[in-house]
């Protein structure tokens, strides 16, 4: 079946511009997560959504970052007034449900480069 799909796969933009990254989770997965991965580093949690509950935004690094999710489907991560330190791979994952022992399944990410 289809996995987690992210778009665009690559994004190059100028400092100060806004960017919007999209994630389509695996169908039926109620939980959705965003991570940031800087070059040569591990994954840094940003935000997660579970059903209609309020999202956990505790990992968002600044108020320039925001995310939305429509029901239990697509999510968008928006970065406003991008800075060079925002350059990274942004990964989205989904899982069957929060709680229990359900591994997260990842997309291939969006590689964001801020000039």
């Amino acid at each position, binding site marked *: 079946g289809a996995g*987690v799909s*992210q778009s665009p796969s690559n994004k190059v933009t100028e400092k100060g511009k806004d960017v919007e990254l999209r994630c389509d989770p695996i169908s039926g997965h109620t*939980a959705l*997560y965003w*991570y940031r*991965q800087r*070059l*040569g*580093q*591990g*994954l840094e*949690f940003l935000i*997660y959504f*579970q059903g209609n509950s309020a999202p*956990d935004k505790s990992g968002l690094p600044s108020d320039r970052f925001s995310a939305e999710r429509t029901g239990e489907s697509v999510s968008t991560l928006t970065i406003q007034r991008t800075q060079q330190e925002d350059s990274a*791979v942004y*990964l989205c*994952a989904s*899982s069957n*449900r*929060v*709680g*229990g*022992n*359900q*591994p*997260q*399944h*990842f*997309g*291939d*990410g969006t*590689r964001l480069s801020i000039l």
Partner: protein
Amino acid sequence: GESVGLHLPTLSVQEGDNSIINCAYSNSASDYFIWYKQESGKGPQFIIDIRSNMDKRQGQRVTVLLNKTVKHLSLQIAATQPGDSAVYFCAERFNNAGNMLTFGGGTRLMVKP
């Protein structure tokens, strides 16, 4: 394209040998652990998981060992193949943290033919 893990610890093994990748986790209250494999330009791929009430779990060519006393997790890959070359991450879930995972820094596995 961009490579993941240019400055990561590296384990180099000969094809056909067994590999052991180690991970020290941070929280004694973590109740669930996962190993992921990440190839260049790809997202992390689930390999195997283990609950904290277990100390060993086996999959196909892979075994995960959990030592809660010293907060240590290892991934053993039997008969390592060139296709196993990748960066490997361990992840832990803090108990009562929903399903939020905290990832380790990763280890690059290089398999020599």
